[in-house]
């Protein structure tokens, strides 16, 4: 199989949410001596775009999104393992940005957060997903440690929304508020709430959050 066919096969395996096939094809690409960066750019990235579009249109559900995400991650790891440190740095620099993502303290609902994490990943963001019921200090420390561009905070319940404010208050208290774009979202949150607590942005759906993240990062980098 030639280079074009193998890369197309990789793309299709991800669109089909087939992790085993994606791993197998990634190994074949490495064995054939094909440029891993080209395989990522022409195989994985376009596949991610297709998966994201299918999800947005309602053709794919969350499980598809997660399975495609797993396939993408597995194939990327195989391809990236063959890159030199310098090449890895170059790929990393080409990322859309990095995001520390969490469902805030007291809240155990993570489906919305998981969807956002996957959509951010397929759109080129490096995502540090801290999980659910995460305390404010853990979130802030991770953002500082990873030099993240964005902190994205999810809360489904009205009584857990104040924990989003707690993260912002902590950033202010530690004198690092300006270093991060803070996005809030989740079932019970509103634009008014985001404004009230001093977040940089709010989005109703994960798709809107991705667009917002891109816009705010551009703005931040342009500032």
């Amino acid at each position, binding site marked *: 199989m030639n280079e074009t066919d193998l890369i197309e096969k990789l793309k299709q395996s991800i669109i089909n949410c087939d992790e085993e096939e994606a791993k197998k094809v990634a190994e074949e690409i490495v064995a054939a001596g094909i440029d891993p960066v080209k395989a990522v750019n022409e195989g994985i990235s376009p596949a991610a775009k297709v998966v994201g579009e299918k999800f947005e249109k309602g053709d794919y559900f969350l499980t598809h999104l997660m399975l495609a995400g797993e396939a993408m991650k597995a194939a990327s790891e195989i391809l990236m393992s063959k890159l030199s440190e310098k090449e890895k740095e170059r790929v990393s620099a080409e990322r859309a940005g990095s995001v520390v993502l969490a469902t805030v*303290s*007291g809240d*155990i609902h993570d*489906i919305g957060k998981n969807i956002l994490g996957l959509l951010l990943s397929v759109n080129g963001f490096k995502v540090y997903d801290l999980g659910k019921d995460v305390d404010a200090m853990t979130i802030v420390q991770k953002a500082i440690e990873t030099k993240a561009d964005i902190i994205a905070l999810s809360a489904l319940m009205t009584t857990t929304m*104040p924990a989003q404010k707690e993260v912002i208050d902590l950033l202010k208290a530690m004198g690092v508020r300006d270093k991060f774009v803070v996005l809030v979202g989740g079932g019970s949150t509103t634009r008014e709430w985001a404004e009230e607590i001093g977040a940089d942005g709010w989005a109703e759906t994960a798709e809107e959050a991705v667009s917002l993240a891109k816009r705010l990062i551009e703005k931040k980098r342009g500032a």
Partner: protein
Amino acid sequence: MVPPWRINTVLERAETGPICTEKDFDLKILSPKLQEVIKEHDIKFNPEEIVPSDNSLADDVWEAGLELYLEVGTFCVSTHRRILFDESEIKEALKTSPTEIIVGSGRDARKMCHRQIEDSKPPFCLFSPDITCDEEIFVPMSMAYLQEPLADGVCAPILDTIEGVRIRAGSPFEVKASVAHAMMFREAARRVGRPGIFLQSVGTAESDVAQIAASNPEWGERLTDGRFVASIAELKTDYSLLNKMVHYHLYGCFVGSLHGPMYGGYCGGAEGTAVVGVAAHLQALMVNQAHYSNYFPIHFRYSFNTSRELLWLISVSYQAIARNTPFISLSNGFTSAGPGTPMVLYEAAAHGLVSVVSGGNLWEIAVAQNKHKNYATPVEARMACEVGHGVVKQGIKRSDANEIVKMILPKYEDKLTNPPLGKTFQECYDIKRVTPRKDYLELYDKIKKELMDIGVPFIY
């Protein structure tokens, strides 16, 4: 016989069951088995038959849900273990589960029953705003719901501040707010002359500790009231939820199970959500050992359940439960539009109609995508419950309901993802007199007449 049967068995299995990661539970255990049972039983959504009359479809959905639950069980997030049951245990629980309970007390006591498809028993109607409200309108808003003639039970609005302080889950303020909620709700019930009415509480309390704080037969949650143990989507629990389960049973109040499978989430589409809905009722029975369920399948992105797909899955899962179990289950509506709009009344009517003819009781109704503070009034719930009672009074069959709902849906389905927000409770009600404003009542009557003209049944 009344649950609980075996609290320790559940708790022990949460500590000894097969171990797996949460991601593996979602993707490698739940998801493939769900796809397998949908295929095996050939379950297919038909957009033209929203209320199917085919009993075999209901039985297929039941079998699929049972097979799914037997294989995957309930995942305990706290211990990373699955709580599993065998078929004989589930059969025993189904056989011994009550088909009716008496809730509330004195002259306000009501019977809450398992219902059959096209049952002649009227639905138990629980009125609930399902939303947060300003602290100062908690009592009038509660009174507005409590004084509704068709309300057999009521759930209060949710506080997000207490004495002006924003409540945070797990904090001492949440404990304080939970107690205040219980006291004020009881006061509201007495003020409308229904001191013994069945109260479902405490929505203000998310944490286990705040829930437990409100249990008190004098001023708080009584033994004749109901409390909820939620589940985490899909088919999951954790120690905070199990703490509530143990406390409620030992306290002796009625235990409800709250489950809302997400359409578009791990369930996939309408077929998968219906099957998970059945499995979630089994979790309610086996893990929470609940006396009744609140069932609210919901669109994962827009938080409504009045679309064609959602109404279909509500119908088939209720039919499955009605035909094959003794469960008492309340169907919780979620509309896209907000109060004071024609659309919310169409959505409420559709939800009440489909739920009751399919075997559900009613829990009505979360409106405005369940996210806007003060956006709820009892008028929307009234619409759903008047229709629900009308279904019984007029002896509506599934085939009739199917034709009627297909006439209601075109009135709103193209606006579901871009709905009118409507008005707040304060804008729709005279708060001092606790009565709906004239313009909303006029709108109600107008929409009611329009719906009657296309065959929607009403009790009066």
